[in-house]
């Protein structure tokens, strides 16, 4: 793999953007790679802008904090773009050449100007209706983050499905240290499923499905992506 993959995740509070970054980092950790993940250091509230960051690479990573120059940007919610619920404007500022943007949407949200700018940087944009996918397979919108992780891994191949499953086990399979809001959401998602195994399985299914369709998209891409 490349020296470093920097992933910036923009979403709304409660969508699991922080959990997604932790899962990706944890999966990389399981794969024997180095990784660091952290949230944007704010007082995140439900439906307010939320950002998280994940850095993965084959060497010890020291860089931390906000990711200003990412290779991958994931947008978990259309309002990040449409209502500017984002810490950065435009949401793709700082994206590196040949980078990748994954947006959870059913329709194209970008203006012509946006497209032009991203084309100039040779940035690939992948729209995926992750929320519908989450509802369909996971049975709840709360699994949107799983679909997004799956898509990210499917395109970048930075971690495998196996490692993601191990990370999922780690995160939801045992006692986890989480602050107030995250702990409440953990409880909510646990209640959605009668059993913990169901939670793990449904979420994994969502990851796999997104992984597969994203892989297919990536294979059909003619664009050279820095992230592969």
């Amino acid at each position: 793999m490349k020296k470093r993959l920097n992933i910036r995740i923009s979403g709304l509070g409660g969508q699991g953007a922080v959990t997604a970054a932790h899962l990706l980092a944890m999966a990389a950790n399981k794969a024997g790679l180095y990784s660091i993940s952290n949230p944007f250091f704010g007082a995140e509230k439900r439906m307010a802008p939320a950002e998280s960051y994940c850095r993965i690479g084959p060497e010890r990573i020291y860089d931390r904090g906000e990711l200003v120059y990412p290779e991958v940007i994931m947008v978990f919610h259309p309002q990040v773009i449409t209502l500017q619920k984002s810490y950065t404007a435009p949401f793709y500022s700082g994206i590196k050449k040949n980078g990748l943007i994954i947006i959870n949407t059913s329709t194209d949200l970008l203006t012509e100007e946006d497209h032009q700018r991203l084309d100039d940087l040779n940035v690939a944009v992948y729209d995926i209706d992750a929320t519908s996918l989450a509802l369909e397979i996971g049975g709840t919108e709360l699994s949107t983050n799983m679909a997004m992780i799956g898509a990210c891994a499917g395109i970048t191949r930075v971690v495998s499905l196996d490692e993601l499953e191990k990370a999922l086990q780690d995160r939801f399979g045992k006692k986890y240290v989480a602050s107030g809001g995250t702990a409440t959401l953990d409880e909510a998602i646990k209640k959605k499923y009668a059993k913990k195994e169901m939670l793990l399985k449904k979420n994994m299914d969502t990851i796999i499905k997104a992984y597969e369709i994203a892989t297919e998209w990536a294979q059909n891409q003619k664009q050279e992506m820095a992230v592969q």
Partner: protein
Amino acid sequence: MNKPVGVKEKGVKMSQHVKLGQKNKKGQVYTDIVDMFNMPEPPSFLTGSEVIRDAVKVASIDLSVAYPITPQSEAAALIGELYAEGYLGDYFRGESEFAVMGQCAGAAFGGARVFTTTAGPGTLRAFENFPMWAGARLPIQVCVTCRGINSPLTIQPDTLEMYFLLETGMLIWHAETAQDLYDYILAGFMVAEQPDVHLPIATCCDGFFVTHTKDTVNKVPDEVCLPPYDPYRSPVPCMDMENPPVRMMRDPFVMKSNYISYSTHASWQQEVRAAIERSRKHTIRILGSLVETQNTDREILIVASGTAVSQSREAIRLLEEEGIKVGLVKLKTIRPFPHAELREATANAKAIFVPEFNLSGWLAREVKACIPNNERVHAGPQVGGGMTMPLEVIAEEIKRYLGIPTETLASRGS
């Protein structure tokens, strides 16, 4: 006392010389700190807050007082869980940082090993206590998870509060990573409690960058722990009515305007500062050195502490790709300040950059005050208010000095 004292008959409490190898009530084996560091577990992937909890778990702490303030709240709450599991003698929530630090002082006066955490505005609210701790020679450890302190309200990381702590008479260590934080918390007690040191210690880390970031950490096994604190090895009497003297002073100098009072206070302050210096040898024994250096033979050096070191490491890597060679000096301790080490490491440098997570540039000033030909020191880059310091920004600063044209970095807004 040179007269033999029958401890049991007299009911006098003597030092509890707990032997290494004995077990505590949780079954943990009292172990020398250096040996502890030589028995690492498989690496764990943890946030800094979890790392604080795990260090406390093996630190034989008697008492901890908590108060919520971001970003240390999570760690303080996790210590509470350890208390519920029986790893601490007592734990409670105080009413404000000023009170918390007072409660910590009371417990330390009573002979307990005390740990607490604070951040940013809390550090400043508590401030009156810190010089008092040092003056009373209380070896309390406070983990300072640095956070902005200015108005308007911020909760972002910013190391300005360390500047305020510099002259409190405390030991001040600055952790770069979660690993550092873990090691410093354990080593911190061992150094701070030495009879010839016996001072409070602030183990500082950059909030969020360390506390809320998941990172790889090598811990020691949970089955070992630090030897307990022995208050009767203190250079000042423990306030438990178990040891003499029970009467403090024959002629107190408090509030007296005379030369005896002046020189008592002056020599006491000198003694506190001397004790800081005496901590060096203990720190070196446990942590190896007060600094960490890389390629100090190079003409350009970065001197930094805390997370700024991490960002510098990445910047050096980035510059290396372009053929620009830069060396690094990481300062582990800020008090004592590693004067000799820094002078030696920077002897051949033509330019010294001091990147900092605050706009006051206090570390650059400390460096300037310490080395000859200090026009070599370039204070910066500096970021304030808690923003991250992209490696590109450090690299740009150095390239500008070298006269290498750089593309203007895209700002985050437009």
